């Protein structure tokens, strides 16, 4: 595709991130009371508050505060965590990789299972297989993560079951089997719900493809059905499948917050809950921006993949 298209897309990603950063900045700065109150608590005196406000530069006009903050971000200076007395970059950095390992595991499993499920359901429309997958899909999309997580814990990790650990984290480079045993439940929780979404969408896309004129034309050429599916139907449903998955990444990023909290997985989600409960502004801002950036970039990536798969898409 043309360089012009790529440039324009990157530009619009940037624009979106600027808007998000502005919104994040505005939200966190509008918190009741100001940052000084947050830090010093409710019982601080006026003088103490004023002094801290001076130090933090909270009395300057908002646009100056915004630009200084934005400028710092761009120079990779994310500030200091208000509660943990550590550089935000450090704190967030570790959490990021932990979340990434969970997200990638969940997403990978989902892609491998959900897409074939959706295709199967479309191929055998109206059959018991389709009904079963449909039921799974409907139930799956109706269960919030915490419900799925809780039920999985009850049945697989409790003292009655006791097969899997109820929470915690072991890094993959420390002990791979340990990592696996700890990642199964959280990834499974995320995965089940995503699988339900994606299988349903893929089924719908694939059904549309199977009903198209060119599939009919291929069958009327006397091609065997498996050739029709493999050569004619599947390639046309790949691009929509990628589009669906990229949409669901947004859902994944939301769900990961709850799942990490329940399973005590030390990732961005758990960190965010902690930061929200403790009003740790720099951390909140950093994580929100990071997650929005991940989402926007993953959308861009999937657009590129779609362009590679579909010859009609030529920007």
């Amino acid at each position, binding site marked *: 595709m043309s360089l012009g298209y790529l440039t324009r897309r990157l530009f619009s990603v940037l624009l979106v991130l600027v808007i998000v950063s502005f919104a994040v900045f505005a939200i966190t700065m509008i918190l009741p009371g100001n940052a000084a109150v947050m830090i010093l608590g409710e019982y601080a005196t006026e003088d103490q508050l004023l002094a801290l406000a001076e130090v933090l530069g909270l009395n300057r006009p908002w646009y100056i505060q915004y630009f200084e903050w934005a400028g710092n971000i761009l120079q990779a200076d994310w500030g200091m965590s208000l509660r943990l007395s550590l550089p935000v970059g450090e704190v967030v950095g570790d959490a990021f990789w932990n979340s990434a390992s969970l997200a990638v595991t969940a997403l990978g499993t989902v892609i491998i299972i959900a897409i074939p499920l959706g295709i199967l359901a479309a191929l055998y429309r109206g059959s018991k297989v389709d009904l079963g997958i449909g039921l799974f899909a409907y139930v799956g999309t109706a269960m919030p993560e915490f419900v799925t997580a809780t039920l999985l814990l009850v049945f697989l990790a409790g003292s009655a079951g006791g097969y899997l650990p109820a929470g915690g984290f072991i890094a993959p480079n420390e002990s791979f089997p340990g990592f696996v045993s700890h990642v199964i439940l959280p990834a499974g929780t995320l995965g089940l719900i995503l699988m339900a979404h994606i299988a349903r969408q893929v089924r719908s896309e694939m059904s549309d493809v199977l009903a198209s004129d060119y599939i009919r034309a291929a069958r009327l*050429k006397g091609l065997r059905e498996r050739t029709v599916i493999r050569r004619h139907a599947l390639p046309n449903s790949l691009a929509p499948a990628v589009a669906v998955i990229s949409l669901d990444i947004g859902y994944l990023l939301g769900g990961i917050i709850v799942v990490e909290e329940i399973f005590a997985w030390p990732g961005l989600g758990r960190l965010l809950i902690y930061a929200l409960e403790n009003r740790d502004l720099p951390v909140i801002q950093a994580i929100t921006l990071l997650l929005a950036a991940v989402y926007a970039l993953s959308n861009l990536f999937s657009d590129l993949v779609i362009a590679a798969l579909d010859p009609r898409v030529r920007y």
Partner: protein
Amino acid sequence: MVEKLGNLPAEASLDGLTVLAIRDYSLNYNTTSGPFEALKSINLEINRGQTLGLVGESGSGKTSLAWAIMRYLPDNASEVSGSISLLGENLRSKSHQEILEIRGRRISMVFQDPSTSLNPVIRLGDQIAEVLVRHRGLTPKQALTEGEALLATTGITKPAEMMDRYPHQASGGEKQRVVIATAFACNPELIIFDEPTTALDIITARQILDLFDRLREETQVTALYISHDLGLVSRIADDVAVIRSGLVVEEELCDRVFSAPQHQYTRDLIAAVPHPNRRIASPAPEESASDLLNMTGVSVRYGETSILTRIFQPDRELTYGACDVSLNVRLRELLGVVGESGSGKSTIAKVLAGLQDFDGSLRFNERVFATRKSINTDYRRAVQIVFQNPDASLNPRQKIREILSRPLKLYKIVPRSEIPQRIRDLLSKVLLPEEFADRYPHQLSGGEKQRVAIARAFAAEPELVICDEITSSLDVSVQASVAKLLVDLQRDTGTTCIFITHDLNLIRQLAHRIAVMYRGSLVDLFETNEAENAERHSYTRALLDAVPVPAGTESSPSP
């Protein structure tokens, strides 16, 4: 390769050999409201080297017959009786595997819309080659070479290049040639053509028709040609069968169908085929008639470029919907505007209806309008438009009564109390029963909806009515009645009319003058009776060549 004749030995005596025989075939569809009889006791035969034209309007069952022959029926279809035989072999008794062997090799099909019947993500060459690999046992490499040769015989100028392209990189005509090449690839005994030119432009359609004729000559292929266009079929078929509501009402040699039609329906169909010699127009306005409307230098540009677009896509051109069009419309005439899709005729219609921004000027009734915004209510009342698509031109949530009363209320044509009576008058003028006032659009047929749209336009008591392809989405028999209705209305009310269409024969029946548009420009403007003069523009002549007068209808007496 194309000289080999089917799978039969070349020396055998082949005349009179029945290739396709359909005997007493009946087909039902099981719907929620009971069984629907799609085909009733069909009896048809096609002999070696003959082309049978199957003519029917929408819902006649002609397409169902094609699916039945290809054995590609939906689950809710049930074959009640009869047989379908290919060279004596009963297709109904074949197993699925055997049918797969037959499709593409012994019977193949050319579809209506090449844009949707070709796989968008597979190269054209591969789509031809796969048939050769599957049925003629060629290796992929051999198949590609053979495919290229096939493309050459269908008139593609650079076959090697075309093999590498994707469907979206080829024009409609090129794609249809690919589909035809694929159909001929395995030298089938029978080819079914399902309205192959309907989705194409006039001139391209003519080229494909010529191609069909040529291939027919060269290969002596047996063909079933399905169409809704009796005039078109008359030029290429040996036998003609007319089908209506699942029943074959007439089956005859082509010439006899037109010279001595047996069934009333056939006679009606023939009468409905537009023929330039059969004028249906109102009397022409006098020579000295003044101009009602003048367009001067009207242009429409699409694609306002923003700065960013210009930076990143410097070679994206401005497209013109219309380019410097100057046209006058005389009082009380019916001006025809003819062109293919993309010619700008609809753009001009939208400009005149006040729906499109434009450069240039319009002069109407002594007032000059230079921009869309300056167009006032008087103009909008005096100029009305009727659109092409009957399904989309009426608000589905409003009853007919409400739809017709809008212009009456808006322009205060009659006092409130007289509105119901006026609605009754309007409905009767367009030959619709009074009760329709209480119906919703979805309860009306396409032709009926179009009549309502016409009634709505005339309700405003306009001076000019613009008809933008109002008959193109309708069946042939309905087309004729709607066209006649329009002309009658014009005559009765003295309204001026602009009639836009791509059907040259139709416009020659209706119009007093004809304007020809090509790629946004007006290229020709002439009195209808001068259509075939020598001084016509070359494009006009090309159009006339592409749409010759229907064969066999010349001798029909004018009404």
